[in-house]
């Protein structure tokens, strides 16, 4: 197991370098950060050159990249367009996005699994068809549409919730945004659970459990669900990283100043330290989440052995 983890960590390095370098190149191509700094005014050439030297911009691209990464791993993420250190920006943005992700994961996990179980166990009946149609519709509505519609209905028309989230963003204000963020994954979890349950219901070991005279509850909970939920749980695990990266739209709609919001601002203002800094962390989160999921898979399913 330990050797497997080490190998996986080593394999992550090229992926990490590749992803961040790709982003770095693109951000670099965004435009001249010095010009962006001065806005419409023409910068004084001497000052501009000084800033360039300070920002390491007078070196070739790959050197800039290595320099930048070295800085990051020393905890120096540079300065955002507001003049704040990027690190400080992260300190305020990450907790919001993490909270939003937690809400989304709970929503997609709980509701998705329940709907999936119901429809998987009633395969072919009207409940099942209903749930399937519902998941198709949910998947077809892009997040930014469902976001605005739900915000309009719950926030404006019925006034159940505040249409935009306050700066502190406590959990109760994040329920609606969390639902919006989770919707598409929710549909996916539902379908995955349904397929898995339907397949396992016919499995021989479930028949054995019935033949053993176990009560129905025990057959379902201990034998059927325990097996059926392995792929679902691992999917939700991988989805955590995706949700964080996909929160841009949701955060924009509900005005949450999380990671997605800061990234969006960073891109609009052509502030490369913000963009590359946040992306680097996102990529790491994503890769680590994938590794954890593979390890979790081995814990849940004893047939998987990582050596």
């Amino acid at each position, binding site marked *: 197991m330990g050797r497997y983890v080490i190998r996986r960590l080593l394999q992550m390095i090229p992926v990490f370098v590749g992803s961040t370098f790709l982003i770095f190149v693109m951000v670099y191509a965004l435009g001249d950060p010095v010009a962006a700094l001065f806005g419409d005014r023409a910068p004084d050439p001497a000052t501009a050159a000084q800033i360039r030297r300070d920002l390491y911009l007078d070196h070739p691209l790959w050197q800039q990249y290595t320099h930048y990464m070295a800085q990051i791993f020393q905890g120096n993420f540079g300065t955002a367009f507001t003049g704040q250190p990027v690190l400080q920006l992260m300190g305020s943005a990450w907790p919001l996005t993490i909270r939003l992700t937690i809400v989304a994961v709970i929503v997609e996990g709980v509701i998705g699994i329940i709907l999936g179980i119901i429809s998987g166990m009633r395969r072919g009946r009207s409940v099942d068809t209903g749930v399937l149609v519902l998941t198709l519709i949910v998947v*077809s509505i892009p997040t930014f549409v469902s976001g*605005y519609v739900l915000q309009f209905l719950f926030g404006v028309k019925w006034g159940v919730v505040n249409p935009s989230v306050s700066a502190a963003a406590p959990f109760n204000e994040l329920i609606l945004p969390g639902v919006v963020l989770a919707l598409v994954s929710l549909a996916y979890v539902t379908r995955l659970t349904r397929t898995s349950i339907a397949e396992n219901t016919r499995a021989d070991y479930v028949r054995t459990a019935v033949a053993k005279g176990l009560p129905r509850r025990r057959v379902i909970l201990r034998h059927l669900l325990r097996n059926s939920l392995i792929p679902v749980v691992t999917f939700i695990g991988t989805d955590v990283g995706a949700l964080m990266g*996909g929160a*841009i739209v949701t955060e*924009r709609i509900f005005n949450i100043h999380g990671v997605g919001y800061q990234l969006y601002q960073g891109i609009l203002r052509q502030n490369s330290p913000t963009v590359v800094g946040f992306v680097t962390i996102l990529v790491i989160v994503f890769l680590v989440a*994938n590794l954890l999921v593979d390890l979790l898979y081995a814990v849940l399913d004893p047939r998987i052995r990582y050596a």
Partner: protein
Amino acid sequence: MPEPLTPPNGRTASEAIGNAGAGGTMDFAASEAVSIGLATAPTARARSLWSDAWHDLRRNPVFIVSALLIVFLVVIAIWPQLIATGNPLACDINKSLLGPAPGHPFGFDTQGCDVYTRTVYGARASVTVGVCATAGAALLGGVLGGFAGFFGGWWDALLSRVSDIFFGIPIILGGLVFLSVVTNATVWPVVGFIVLLGWPQIARIARGAVITAKQNDYVQAARALGAGPIRMLLRHIAPNAVAPVIVVATIALGTYISLEATLSFLGVGLKPPTVSWGIDISSASTQIRNAPHMLLWPAAALSVTVLAFIMLGDAVRDALDPKLR
């Protein structure tokens, strides 16, 4: 590719489950579609697989409805004048935000443009992006993934690493960064970007399907009888590996349309004067209290379009997957 004990197609657990891809919309049906690869057996059966599938599809109301919808959308995308006589760019600011009027069933937007005409014309951008991006991604992903699965070795390892890199980039974020550089207002940068980030998903499916097909006894037999690699790939493997790729591509088409709209909504996808549902929804979002009709029609058109393609993909998958019969 990590070597540990892995689920069937030699993928690691997390890869097997969701295609991990960052944009939640992109990976909807990928893993479910993988199983079709296992279902496609010998060439003789492949033929009957297709005719069986067609037999099933013709009787499937979901397929009929979605196919008709798609035909309609394509026709509208090519000849919007058929049902909308107005000009989507001819606007009268005096009519800003007005509700439905005779000849203007959906009302007007902020600039006083006719929402109905714009909604009809919006199909062109969406269908163009969807079809072109899917064709590109399927071709690129199918060929690269197919070769990786067939030849294995360093080619396969390289492809896996490269697609891992693309999977590591959250898709909407990637779109923001990549496309904010572009000033070209046509659909092509968006198509290019979607192909760039979409092909690894299809490559992965194609790779798995080819590996599965390669292990079939009749393919081994053909090899034992001295069939050359090109002949094996074209005659024996490709026909069997194509089914899952088609299914994933169909479903991906719907999600690509959704992705284009999202990017346009964020201001980095298509840009005016191109008429796009995403742009219209974005401008409608600020007026949602005063003029909900502005949001409703393009949003409905977009959702129905995406739904049609996802339903089509779903129906095709059900027809091609004998396990569900």
